[in-house]
């Protein structure tokens, strides 16, 4: 562990910090707070417009969203948090191999989720409720689209972190970037709980 002098007699402090001792961890935590607020407001807008629209929801002529594909996508996305968490724990113990493997598995699951959304779910949704058809379609694509954009950004960040991991940039002391990425990734997965509940489940059960 890298310790340096501060100049106060006898005082040595770590030169590398992780977790809540690290400044960048706070940066990520605060970014998550503001993005969470963004999602909360968008989902609140969904409920607002829905209840103004009256008892028929989706509006006449639009079928309720099918659950099969979204549930599969959910399983894939949520399971991607497991290897990510595993990778995070691994590097805290200094294991490079498990770090790299975990991040790679997580990435592949996340990418599968996004591909399914773009190439399987969206073409179907664009046919039955495109955004320009009314508030229902608009909200569908706004919410899933905002979430998908966050997944995409997460995948890009993951590529960066993986590249750094392969370069050996991380060890048991120096790994806050991994922690920050994994924290973000868990956030994206938690948001999907609310997206699934709002967009896909609520028209059927509420």
């Amino acid at each position, binding site marked *: 562990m890298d310790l340096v002098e501060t100049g106060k007699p006898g005082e040595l*402090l770590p*030169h590398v910090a992780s977790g809540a001792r690290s*400044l960048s961890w706070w940066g990520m935590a605060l970014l998550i707070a503001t993005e969470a607020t963004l999602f909360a407001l*968008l989902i609140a807008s969904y409920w607002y417009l829905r209840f103004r*629209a009256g008892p028929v929801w989706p509006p006449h002529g639009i079928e309720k969203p099918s659950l099969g594909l979204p549930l599969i996508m959910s399983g894939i996305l949520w399971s991607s948090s497991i290897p990510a968490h595993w990778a995070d724990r691994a590097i805290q113990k200094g294991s490079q191999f498990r770090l790299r493997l975990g991040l790679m598995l997580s990435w592949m699951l996340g990418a599968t989720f996004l591909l399914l959304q773009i190439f399987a779910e969206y073409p179907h949704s664009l046919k039955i409720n495109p955004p*320009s058809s009314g*508030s229902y379609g608009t909200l569908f694509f706004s919410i899933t689209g905002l979430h998908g954009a966050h997944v995409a950004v997460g995948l890009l960040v993951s590529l960066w972190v993986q590249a*750094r991991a392969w370069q050996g940039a991380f060890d048991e002391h120096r790994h806050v970037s991994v922690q920050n990425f994994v924290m973000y990734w868990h956030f994206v997965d938690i948001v999907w709980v609310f997206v699934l509940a709002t967009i896909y489940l609520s028209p059927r059960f509420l």
Partner: protein
Amino acid sequence: MTTLADRPSERLEQLWAEEPGLGTWLSTVDHKRLAKKYLYTAITFLILGGIEASVMRLQLAHSNLKLLDPETYNQLFTMHGITMIFLFAVPVFSGFGVYMIPLMIGSREMAFPRLNAFTYWGFVAAGIFMYSSFLIGKAPDGGWFNYPPLTSQSFSPGPNIDFYALGLIFLGLASTGAAINFITTILKMRAPGMTLNRMPIFVWGELAMQVSILFAQPALTLATVMLMLQRHWHWHFFDPGAGGDALLWQHLFWIFGHPLVYIVLLPGLGIVATILPTFARRPMVGYTWVVLAEMATAFIGFGVWVHHMFATGLPSLALSFVSLTSFLVAIPSGIQVFAYLATLVTGKPKLTTPMLYVLGFILIFVIGGVSGVMTASVPLDQTVTDSYFVVAHFHYIMGGVALFPTLAALYYWGPKMFGRLLDERWGKISFWLTFIGFNLAFFPMHILGVIGMPRRTYTYASHLGWDSWNLTETIGTFIMGVGILITIVNLVRSTRRGEPAGNDPWDADTLEWATTSPPADYDFETIPEVRSLHPLWDQPELKDGAQPPELGGRPLAHGHRVLATSLLDAKPEAVVDMPHESLWPFFLTVGLMGFFYGALTRIGLVAALGGFVSLVSIVGWIWPRGQTQEM
């Protein structure tokens, strides 16, 4: 192990100095240089906003004048609001924060220096983006709150509203970055021993401000993105015909917009809480209550937004609830005023220019506050909203708090930033002109509202008796303008010809006065250990220069480093390497500028190019260079 010299200032100078001047003008990450840029830019926008107001007041000086056509007037009042709020009030307090917070908390830098640079460049760029609309005569004209359907494509087909929405999205990126920077700095970089209850009130005020920005900004970003999607891609958020709702915009906008006024108020009150005790020659009475009041105002402020919508026909239960919270939100503000009064009557107030501005502000704030309380009453608000009464109220509060503490701070902190005192005689003259002009300009607006004059009107009929009040307001505006200009000239002249200030011309208590004026590049020769809420009044060694290591001072002179400390008790936790100058924040801003102009003109190539430059800049920014240990 290298033996440190007794005063390692030469070493620190080498480690922290940036090349002065043009060489690092674009790449600076020094919080003091960035802060001055913030202040110069914000004051420039104050002048632009003032010009807009002055031209409007000329048009309104008499009934049925034809100085301006309605479209020009509508653009002016819209841009006046946007400029004063987004481009002056919020950035000026961010600017003072960027300069003073590291100093007040005993740090050498903010948490994220390159992000600091980006938030400045982003602010300027967004301001330029919005102002470029004047070049084609298409400035935003929907009012600063921009309600649809007026601002939807059908009623505002031109690019005016696109400048508004895209400009504010751009600015929002900068504001969010700044909020993250401030909060991390305040929570994690305070000098050892500066527990939360030893943190200066100004720092608390800035913390409350930036936390509010963090949670309020998403509402505005969301609303403006929704509006752009509706305007150009025909998505449906606000148009009733397709399941949208015009009030959705109002809710989202005011969920942002109300906290915004506290975002402006809280740092201003923090400045008052800094200057008043200094010139009352005693600590603030009721520090704990003042701090709690700052935080409570921010918190309650998130629960009152519907009071901007009292006339929209919402259910009375909702209106009653919000009326209650709107009455209650006045309590913490009142608590702060009573703390000021207690401090004044138990101290020895010295009527220097900054103190005059602070005292003038207290009166203005109270008048604005009581008129605000009147608007908390639903039936009364329904008679005065959208009239000049409410224009009076918010100019007393917003104009009051954005202007008077800012001008006070220029006289108070100007000497610290530039090393020279401002002229005291001209300072007092500027105060009286500004104060008298302000009241002449805005007090009659209460009356005009009561006698029926609606707001946002480019002219008015001659038989209604509104002429003399309007003329008074116009005259007051110009008197106030002269007062403000005198301060600006005073500031500029003092930077060259003012009397040297010395480290601590006011014999104040907070840590920024322990540095030289202006501070060295490294701010503190040793990071001080703090043992009191009033370090310079209680720890005499801080007045003599660097706190020696035996008393807790940490030179931290082996690298370009700062100290990270714990959240509550500021116990040292780690040593953090800070980055050096970098052009990437500037390039990112250029890329984003391209992206937003591409979005505005809907030229995909420009947007894509801008996006590409932005991406490359982000990569360049985080590319590991061995300067910081984290990426």
